[in-house]
């Protein structure tokens, strides 16, 4: 097991290095850039040359990359061109917001998706099953920004159930410990802050959860249908076991194997959904940071770090999925 983990971590390092080179070159070949953004279109060539030299963009790209990597290994991703703040600080501020959103979204997607998928399979061919198929098709095909604005319109404008935007009510004096507002409220016993943060989370998290929710319902349904036809489920019935045991130990434990893989892939893909969701709900997280860094004059250092971070999250989540796979399925352990 340890060997598997070590091998995967080495693979992770190679992936990240290759990706960093790719991003580095690709970003610098995009039209526009920080120089134009900072100086405007009518800057004199002299001032442009000065700034280019100051930022180090006059050197060969390989040299630039080498210098970048040299700093990265010491944990220094440079400073944001837009704000001048260290990149780690800029990302550190936005990171908890997105993680909080993503975690709650995945809790919704898994917490609703697995039971719904199971029920649909048990009602195969009947009303509930057909409703789930129609519902998941809608969930997969509806654009996130459209659903986001729709929900926002209905639940914050027509009926005022949820706040329209932001992570916490203005004027609420909450203590910031970790940046995760829900967690901070629990840690500092400011439970009103936790409640308020959760209240703000529901709509954006649900919006972000729609696609993974729909995918999880579908995969669970298909997987449970397969397992229901397995001989060992018939054996379990022949033993006269209780429904609860048959469902948990014999059906779901087998049916969840492909679902776990899906959960990993969907978690990794959440960031792309977060970009849109955060825009709709004015959520100051990584998604907002990405769009701002691109539109605000190609903030190379921030973008580089952000994309590497996204890749890191994706690979780590899927590593965890693979490890949990070995935990659930003894047949994987042998290999």
């Amino acid at each position, binding site marked *: 097991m340890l060997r598997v983990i070590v091998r995967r971590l080495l693979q992770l390092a190679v992936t990240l290095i290759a990706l960093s080179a790719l991003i580095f070159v690709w970003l610098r070949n995009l039209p526009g850039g920080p120089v134009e953004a900072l100086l405007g279109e009518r800057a004199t060539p002299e001032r442009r040359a000065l700034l280019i030299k100051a930022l180090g963009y006059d050197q060969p790209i390989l040299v630039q990359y080498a210098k970048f990597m040299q700093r990265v290994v010491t944990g220094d991703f440079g400073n944001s061109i837009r704000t001048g703040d260290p990149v780690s600080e800029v990302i550190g501020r936005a990171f908890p917001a997105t993680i909080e959103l993503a975690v709650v979204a995945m809790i919704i997607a898994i917490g609703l998706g697995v039971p719904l998928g199971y029920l649909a399979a048990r009602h195969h061919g009947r009303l509930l099953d057909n409703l789930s198929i129609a519902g998941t098709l809608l969930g997969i095909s509806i654009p996130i920004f459209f659903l986001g604005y729709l929900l926002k319109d209905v639940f914050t404008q027509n009926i005022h159930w949820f706040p329209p935007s932001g992570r916490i009510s203005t004027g609420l004096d909450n203590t910031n410990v970790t940046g995760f507002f829900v967690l901070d409220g629990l840690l500092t016993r400011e439970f009103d802050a936790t409640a308020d943060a959760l209240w703000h989370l529901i709509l954006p998290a649900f919006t972000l959860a729609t696609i993974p929710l729909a995918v999880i319902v579908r995969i669970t349904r298909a997987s449970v249908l397969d397992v229901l036809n397995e001989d*060992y489920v018939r*054996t379990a019935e022949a033993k*006269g076991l209780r429904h609860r045991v048959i469902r948990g130990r014999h059906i779901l434990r087998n049916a969840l194997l492909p679902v776990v893989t899906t959960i990993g892939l969907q978690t990794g893909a959440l960031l792309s959904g977060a970009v849109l969701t955060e825009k709709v709900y004015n959520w100051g997280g990584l998604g907002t940071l990405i769009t701002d860094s691109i539109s605000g004059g190609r903030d190379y250092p921030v973008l580089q770090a952000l994309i590497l971070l996204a890749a890191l999250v994706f690979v780590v989540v899927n590593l965890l999925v693979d490890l949990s796979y070995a935990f659930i399925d003894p047949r994987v352990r042998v290999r």
Partner: protein
Amino acid sequence: MSLLDVRDLSVVFQRRGERPFTAVDKVSFSVEPGQTVGLVGESGCGKSVTSLAIMGLLPKRGNRVSGEVLFEGADLLKLRPDDMRDRRGRDIGMIFQDPLSSLNPVVPIGLQVAEVLERHRGMNRKAALKEARELLDAVGIPDPMRRLKEYPHQISGGMRQRALIAIALACKPRLLIADEPTTALDVTIQAQILTLLKQLVDETGTALIMITHDLGVVAGLCDTVNVLYGGKVVERAARHELFGRPRHPYTHGLLSSVPRLDSPRGERLHAIPGSVADNIPWVEGCAFAPRCGNVVDACLEGTPPLEPTATGGDLRCNNPVSEEVAVP
């Protein structure tokens, strides 16, 4: 009173938009305590469906079960599902054909045996696992302590079937149904499993319904044999009667098609012409008529009745094989 008395059991499969199909057609037979009864026939003759109907394991939709399944006088078909659930695994155990697919791949063997003890004998996990170890030992699994923690893919096919037998017999049921228990195993392992079954049935006094297409299995194990064709019992007889003097042309054909060690080399095997698909509905005549060498006009004029024979069995045939004709 018989332990199990199956009376006019019918199972009709009907899917929406399709013609109903009668898989089991008014089958009656009984099993006395401690007796071993065979259900024999080709694939598709309804023997497995019969066993699933007795166990209440047929799918909830798409079929209609009628008749009576009296277990110690109580009709299992009329029980509430939860009451039937209480009896399955406790009063009636069942062993299935494919031991690998019949065991849960992600649950250790020990727990798969122990859970049935927890369910029906109210044992806690520790006591159940201890008992499971003894059960595995009793069915001849070496080093049972280690096997408790192992998974189905880690043990051999023969051992898996032994584990399934341990599961089925864990609560000392009064009836055991074995549905083709040796079909998926090597010939040498088959013999071991059959010997084990016979030994356990003799020791515990459990009655056994042996479902098989293999007459060799029947010959070594069963007290009485029911031969099924097209969902109906066509012949019922004590084992030695059936093997010595098969009366129904179908039974006769089955026995003739068994290769013999003492027959001359190069001699062709006898085969029953046609296949199970070449039948006619029982209402129009004998389903076996299209493949039968003894067919007479009466065979195409309605279902032949199941009538008692002089030797204490039952026979459904208008023109049976004469008692003097021996199996070649």
